[in-house]
């Protein structure tokens, strides 16, 4: 008679190797050092988290018209509420702030239109790059179609910060590409002009460039010809960011295999044809994350315009901190600014990471 081998059913894994207990043992208490580190971290969390939550949420005052209203002992968010418009729009006339809002909505709608499949993407891009800035400029500055004129010295707050960042990056993009191509060129003079420009700008801090823009540009222009401070600062920011953009683009150009250049030449394409049709589309796709990263860096760096006397988002926060009605709300102001900057920068860095994954077409060499 045959003996049928019948295995008894497997026992479940021991409770110490699966489930929450195992996870805690593996990740928090695997060795004496780890046990110490876990308790040390818990202690740090205990020191930081409860007081911050208590200050920012539980004991906070949300409404009021002066510091005197904040008696709960926690954060005085009423300060942010009162100053909110100034933080967003600077000294832009209150009745006119709808123009800024309209411009923002317009941009969001136009960018959002890319999602519509039937729309012509080329026309849309042209509309965003060429038409929109003109419309936005007249909306912001006014003086036409019965819009009240608003001087650029009144522009400020988060509006100015975003304006500086976006114009800086958009304007520096073509300049950066030209500089990068120049640096990779075989023409010695063109190459050295680009190298000298890029390396000089990269060697000095942005603040010296801003000082140069606000103090030295008037000295270099003929008598009588002068333009306003915002434009000068924008030129400074654009030149600065173009040097960094050039290095990012150069990274992309170098990553394109030589065969692509040779193939474009073999097809009989001229230099500009081969660059525009073959090399740049591939190179720029590679460096999109790098471009987003330099945008994040530039966005953070726009705070420096405060030092040359422009009141961007951080500048308005600093100015509001000196209000005698609201003495002692420094931390609230900085916390609010930090939160806004953090959301924008962190959001962009996550976006760049997701873009990197999306654009990954399997050509990456490991």
């Amino acid at each position, binding site marked *: 008679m045959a003996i049928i081998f019948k295995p008894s059913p497997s026992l479940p894994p021991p409770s110490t190797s699966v489930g929450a207990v195992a996870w805690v043992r593996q*990740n928090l208490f695997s060795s004496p050092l780890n046990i110490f*580190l876990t308790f040390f971290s818990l202690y740090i969390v205990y020191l930081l988290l409860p007081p911050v939550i208590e200050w920012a949420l539980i004991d906070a005052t949300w409404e009021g018209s002066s510091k005197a209203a904040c008696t709960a002992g926690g954060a005085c968010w009423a300060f942010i509420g009162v100053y909110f418009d100034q933080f967003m729009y600077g000294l832009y006339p209150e009745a006119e702030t709808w123009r800024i809002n309209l411009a923002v909505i317009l941009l969001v709608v136009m960018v959002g239109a890319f999602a519509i499949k039937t729309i012509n993407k080329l026309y849309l891009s042209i509309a965003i790059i060429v038409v929109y800035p003109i419309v936005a400029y007249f909306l912001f500055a006014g003086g036409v179609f019965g819009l009240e004129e608003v001087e650029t010295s009144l522009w400020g707050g988060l509006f100015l910060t975003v304006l500086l960042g976006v114009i800086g990056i958009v304007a520096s993009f073509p300049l950066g590409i030209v500089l990068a191509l120049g640096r990779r060129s075989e023409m010695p003079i063109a190459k050295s002009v680009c190298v000298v420009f890029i390396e000089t700008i990269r*060697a000095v*801090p942005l603040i010296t460039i801003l*000082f140069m823009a606000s103090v030295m540009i008037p000295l270099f222009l003929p008598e009588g010809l002068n333009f306003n401070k915002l434009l000068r600062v924008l030129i400074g920011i654009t030149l600065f960011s173009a040097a960094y953009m050039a290095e990012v683009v150069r990274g992309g150009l170098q990553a394109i295999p030589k065969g692509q250049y040779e193939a474009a030449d073999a097809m009989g394409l001229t230099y500009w044809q081969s660059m525009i049709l073959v090399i740049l589309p591939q190179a720029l796709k590679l460096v999109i994350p790098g471009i987003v990263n330099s945008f994040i860096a530039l966005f953070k760096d726009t*705070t420096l315009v405060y*030092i040359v006397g422009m009141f961007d988002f951080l500048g308005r926060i600093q100015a509001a901190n000196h209000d005698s009605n609201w003495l002692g709300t420094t931390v609230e102001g900085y916390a609010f600014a*930090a939160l806004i*900057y953090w959301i924008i920068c962190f959001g962009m860095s996550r976006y760049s990471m997701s873009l990197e994954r999306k654009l990954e077409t399997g050509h990456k060499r490991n």
Partner: protein
Amino acid sequence: MSDKTTPSNNSFLNDAGNRALIFQILLLAMVVFAGYYLFSNLQANLDNRGISTGFSFFNEPAGFPILIHLIEYTEANTYGRAFVVALINTFVISLLGIILATIIGVIMGLARLSKNWLVARLATVYIETLRNIPLLLQMFFWYFAVLAALPAPRNSYEFADFLLNKRGIYSPNPISQDGFGLVIFGFILSLVASIGLIIWAKKRQTRTGLWFPAYWSSLGVIVGITFIFLAIAGFPIEFDLPQKSRFNVTGGMVLPPEFVAVLVALSTYTGAFIAEIVRAGILSVNWGQTEAARSLGLRDNLTQRLIVLPQALRVIIPPLTSQYLNLAKNSSLGAAIAYPELVAVVMGTTLNQTGQAIETIGLCMLVYGSLSLSISVFMNWYNNKMSLIER
């Protein structure tokens, strides 16, 4: 068929070489013309405003105080001296910042890789928070929110002989007495001895394969010999302790709040970036390397030190260099909270008082340029030393 290699339509303009030449001549002409145009405008403008060019103002008395100076400086000193004071302040803050940021960065980078979930999360929170908030905001926060909220001198926090208040961090000031030269001699002697020890240990290891804990023992040698000489000389150091009075603190050494705020902001901010570089560097080392080291029987810390770290450093050093450069350049933000560094003193006060825009801004750019250049030269040297020697 003709065997010409040039195309039949070989007019002068169709030749690539000629076109490149013409383009470059045009470019050069444009650059020269733009330079000439700007320069002539500059001359005209300066003449109109009655500003004389040149650095002669460097010999005039500056007339403004500088709060933080490591060399003697009073209001009666010249602009030249003020420039040197500011230069030293910039160097000091950059150097200390680089050292501190590296320490913070390495610790946080390793912490983010930790197997301990909680430690890794905390490090991630630290890195992602500090990286995404502008440095200037962080500096303002430390200076106007944290340090300005400290108590007045009479209510200072006290730790041992240290005082912490609005005016800064006060510490005992060591003052050398007679016989201190002997201690310095002992210290130099111990340094020489420890270097000798390290060289000997290395040679012996190459020759016999025997390992000697040279770094730990040389630390012992340095501390030991210096201490012996201290004892022989009868401890020739006295400490000038800070004393708090009603409105002020007298004596001791002080780290002013401007300095502390700039240093803390710079090193924590750059530290977050360095942490990511360190993490990426260590992750870039193939796991097979660790497994191979283990199969050779190396212990965990030796695996890290001898196998993983040297390979990770090759990936780490180039981006680390650019972080160091960023830190040195970012030290210029100290101007915003009145830390008297180069931008604040030269491009701020000196420029305002003398109106010499070209000279002051040019000088600052030159200094930052050379600072950047020297950091990158040093790091390139180090990179070459560490890089893979290919055969």
